[in-house]
C-alpha cells in the first residue's frame, strides 16, 4: 500500500461562544501523525479531544491554525476520512448491507464494485452472514462493527474513532479492541482514536498524546514501545499505564467540567424541537 494518511495539526486553537466569555477549548495544538500509525488522544473530559477529532473530520470549522491530510488542508468532510462515533449511528430503516452501502452513495464506483466493497468489508468485520439484518436486531457491539465497515468501505486514508467503544459492556469492549487492532493491521490505515480509557489506548497505539483540559493542550506524547499483541497484565504495560494515569491525576476535572467541549458529539439530540404546527 502507498504510504498516504499523514495528519498534520499545527497551531490549532478553537473557542466556542459561551455566555459572555468565549469558552476556550483547544489551545495551540501541534500533532504530526504518521501514515499507517495507530495514534490515540487521551485526556480527561473537557480537554477538547472530541472537538479536535471533529475538526480533523471536517464536521466543524471555525478554528485557528492548520489541519492537513497529506499536505491538503481539511475543508469540510471527505470520504477520504472515515469517522466512527460513540453511538454506531446506523439508520434503523436500512439493513446492515444498506447501512454500509450508504457510505458509497457518493462514490464513483460502479454498482458491481459497490456490492463487492460492501461484501468485502462486512467480511472484514465478521458480519457477512448478517447482511440482511436490521440494526435493532443486533447487539451494541455488532452495531459498532457495522459502523466500522461503513467507516472503511470507501478505503479512506485515515480512520477517526471518537470513543467508539465507550458505550459497550466491558467484555464486548475488550473483544472489539482486539478486533480493531486486527482490522488496523489488515487495512494498514492511519488510525486516530479518541478515548478516555488509558488501557485501551496503550493496548492499541503506537503513540499516545495526553491532553490537558481547560483549555485543551498537549501535555506530552508517549511512545508505546511494547511488542504486539500486548498483554494488559504485563508488568511493562502496567507501568506505562500508571505513568500516564499520573498525568490524569494532576489534572482532575472540576465537577463543572463536561461542558461544550465534549458534549458536541453526544448522542440523541433533536434537529429543531419546534412543533408549532404539530398539535
Amino acid at each position, binding site marked *: 500500500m502507498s504510504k498516504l494518511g499523514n495528519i498534520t495539526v499545527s497551531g490549532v486553537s478553537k473557542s466556542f461562544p459561551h455566555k459572555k466569555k468565549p469558552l476556550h477549548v483547544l489551545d495551540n495544538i501541534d500533532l504530526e501523525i504518521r501514515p499507517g500509525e495507530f495514534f490515540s488522544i487521551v485526556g480527561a473530559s473537557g480537554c477538547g479531544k472530541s472537538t479536535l477529532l471533529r475538526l480533523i*473530520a471536517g*464536521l466543524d470549522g471555525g478554528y485557528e491554525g492548520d489541519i492537513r491530510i497529506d499536505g491538503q488542508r481539511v475543508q469540510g*468532510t*471527505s*470520504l477520504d476520512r472515515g*469517522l466512527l*462515533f460513540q*453511538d454506531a*449511528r446506523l*439508520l*434503523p*430503516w*436500512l*439493513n446492515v448491507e444498506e447501512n454500509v452501502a*450508504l*457510505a458509497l*452513495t*457518493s462514490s464513483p464506483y460502479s454498482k458491481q464494485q459497490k456490492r463487492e466493497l460492501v461484501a468485502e468489508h462486512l467480511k472484514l468485520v465478521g458480519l457477512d452472514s448478517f447482511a440482511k439484518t*436490521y440494526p*435493532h436486531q443486533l447487539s451494541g457491539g455488532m452495531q459498532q462493527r457495522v459502523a466500522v465497515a461503513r467507516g472503511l468501505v470507501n478505503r479512506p486514508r485515515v480512520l477517526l474513532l471518537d470513543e467508539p467503544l465507550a458505550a459497550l459492556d466491558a467484555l464486548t469492549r475488550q473483544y472489539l479492541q482486539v478486533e480493531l487492532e486486527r482490522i488496523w493491521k489488515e487495512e494498514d490505515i492511519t488510525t486516530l482514536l479518541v478515548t478516555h480509557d488509558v488501557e485501551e489506548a496503550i493496548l492499541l497505539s503506537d503513540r499516545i498524546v495526553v491532553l490537558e483540559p481547560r483549555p485543551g493542550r498537549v501535555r506530552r506524547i508517549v511512545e508505546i514501545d511494547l511488542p504486539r499483541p500486548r498483554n494488559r497484565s504485563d508488568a511493562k504495560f502496567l507501568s506505562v499505564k500508571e505513568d500516564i494515569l499520573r498525568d490524569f491525576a494532576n489534572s482532575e476535572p472540576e465537577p463543572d467540567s463536561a461542558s461544550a467541549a465534549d458534549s458536541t458529539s453526544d*448522542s*440523541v*439530540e*433533536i*434537529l*429543531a*424541537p*419546534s*412543533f*408549532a*404546527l*404539530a*398539535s
Partner: protein
Amino acid sequence: MSSKHKSSLTPSRIALRSVIPVLVVGFWVLATTRGWIDPKIWASPSKVADAWRQLTLNGFLWKAIEGSLLRETGGFLLGAVVGFLVGNLLGLSRIADWLATPLLGFLKQISVFAWLPLISLFFGIGEWSKAVFIGISAFFPLVTSTYAGLHSVQRNHAELARLLRLSPWQRYRKILLPAALPAILGGIQLGLVLTWMATVGADFFMSAGYSIGGFLIQGASSLKFGLVIIGVALLGIIGWGLDFLTRQVGGYLLRNRPKTLQA
C-alpha cells in the same frame, strides 16, 4: 401493532368480539317486532332487508358506493398530495416555515364547513368544489404530520449525511423521508378518516348525485328509514375498511423498524 391484531383473530376471540353487535341487533329485532318502539321511526330488519333488495336490484347500491369512493379518493389525493408538498416546504425551508407556519396554524382552526361559501364561490358546485371541500380534510393532517416528521429527524442522522457527503436529494431520500415516514403515515390515516366524513358532508351541503350520503338524504326526506340505516352501516363499514387498509399498508412499510418507531 399489526401483528398483534393478526394473532388475536382466533375463532373464540371473533365470537367474543361479536357479543355486543349480536346483542344490539337482537334488541333491534325484538324492539321492532314487539312494538317497543314506533316502527314509523325505527325501521324493522325486514324493512331494511327490503330496501337492500331494491337497492341491489336497481343497481343504486353499487353506483352510490362507487360515487362515494371515487369522490373520497379524488378529494383525499388532492388534499394529501398538496398537504404533503406544503409540509415538505415548511419542514425543509426555514424561511417558508417562518413565513407560513403561523398562517397555517390559524387556518387549520377553521372548520371545513366554514370554507363552503368560499369554495362554491371559486369552484362552483360541481365535482371540483367537492374535491376541494373533501381535500381540505386531508390537507391539514398531511401538512402537520409531514412537518412534524421532518422535524423529528435526529441531529445525529442529519450529521451522518454530511459525513457521508450525500447530496441534498440523497439526504432527503435516504434519511429525512424515512425518518418522517411513521408520522406521515399517521397523517394519512387521520386524513382518510376525516375525508371519509367530509364526503358525507359534501353530499349534504352540495349536490349529492349517486352517493351513500344520498341514501341518508333521500331516506330522511321520504321517511324510508331502511335506507338511512343502510347508508349509516355502509359508511361505517367502508370507513373501517379504509382505515384497516391504511394500517396494513403502514405496517408493511414499517415492517423492518423497531416497534417503538411504528406509527
